[in-house]
């Protein structure tokens, strides 16, 4: 039935994102990528927040701007 709400699928581009699971990209090396905005609670209880469309969370713990990646994870020659 064209008007049956149960059969209606969202039009492209209008999918209800909040209802979907948020995908986090976890690479072998380098930052974890999470869709923003995010709040990150640190060990000392302080909260860092970013409203960027995507954020790069440092996984190597070397960043001087922790919890955000600052590319310190890169190999050096």
């Amino acid at each position, binding site marked *: 039935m064209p008007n049956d709400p149960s059969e209606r699928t969202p039009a492209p581009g209008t999918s209800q994102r909040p209802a979907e699971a948020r995908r986090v990209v976890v690479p072998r090396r380098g*930052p974890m990528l999470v869709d923003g905005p995010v709040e990150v609670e640190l060990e000392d209880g302080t909260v860092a927040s970013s409203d960027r*469309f995507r954020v*790069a969370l440092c996984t190597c713990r070397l960043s001087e701007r922790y919890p955000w990646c*600052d*590319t310190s994870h*890169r190999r050096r*020659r």
Partner: protein
Amino acid sequence: MSHDRDALHDRHSPALPSSRGPLSAGVLALLRGEGPPPGAELAAEADPYGDDLQLALYCCYELHYRGFAGVDPALEWDPALLTVRRAMENRFLGALRQDVEVHRDVRSAVKELETEPVEGSGASWFLRDEGELRHLREYAAMRSVYHLKEADPHAWVLPRLWGRAKAAMVSVEFDEFGGGRAERVHAKLFADLMADLGLETAYGVYLEHSPAPALAVVNLMSLLGLHRALRGALVGHFAAVEITSSPGSRRLAEAMRRTGAGPAAEFFYDEHVEADAVHEQVVRHEVIGGLLEEEPYLEDDVVFGMDATVFLEDRLGDHVMACWQAGRPALRSPLPEPVAVSA
């Protein structure tokens, strides 16, 4: 019916620069409405990286951005001007194709770009360790020919991408343009940095001061942005900028802090450390990955865009360091004393 001459002639646009040779003199005369365009043979003979050709090309391209005060905006699509522009582009691009050593594939090009030397010798290393405010002011003035139009040439690639590459490129551009907030547009953050350094912030003010290697870096992005045929190279260029920006910005942020340049000056580079660490990932995996999934035959172009960017950035770095080490200004003309620094 009379036209409003001001509206037609971009009154708020930057002033025309002075010429640097026969080619740029000819282009500037045409822009002022005072002469025929220079012959294409002048372009074929010019130094492809020299002041004359680079300034002439820069002026042709500027018509696609903000134009010049008193110049008819319709000249943007003037067939005679486009003919000489094409001859200059062929000269410039031909030289790059000959001189740039290209990597085998995207993978090896990226790998080299993201390997950080422990001790580098470029301008950002010098500025971090021993740069004085006068060096930082010169550096900002010559970088302003790009940063005041930051991310603009890359927007031209959007209609030429689709799918994953397009969606990702748009999100990075959205971030560059402040995520919907005018005060966070990266070009505006750079203007704030310039104010901290006592520089004028008006668009195009330091074109006159900027040496050829600084113009060449911007001309490459305009060239790649304006030609759909070069979309792969534009994407490669953008990736190279984003991959190298974060560590370079970290050094420049340190330079700003050490010299007490000011909060906006520090913020511009701090913001780029974080933003470009994200952009790099998105451009590498989504933009390049998406583009090559759709158009795998563009891989050589992507690599060329990356390597040509590094080649021209290195030439600029060499120029700047040669001047500073010899105790000379790296600009074509000295900067005026700092204008009143904003409180």
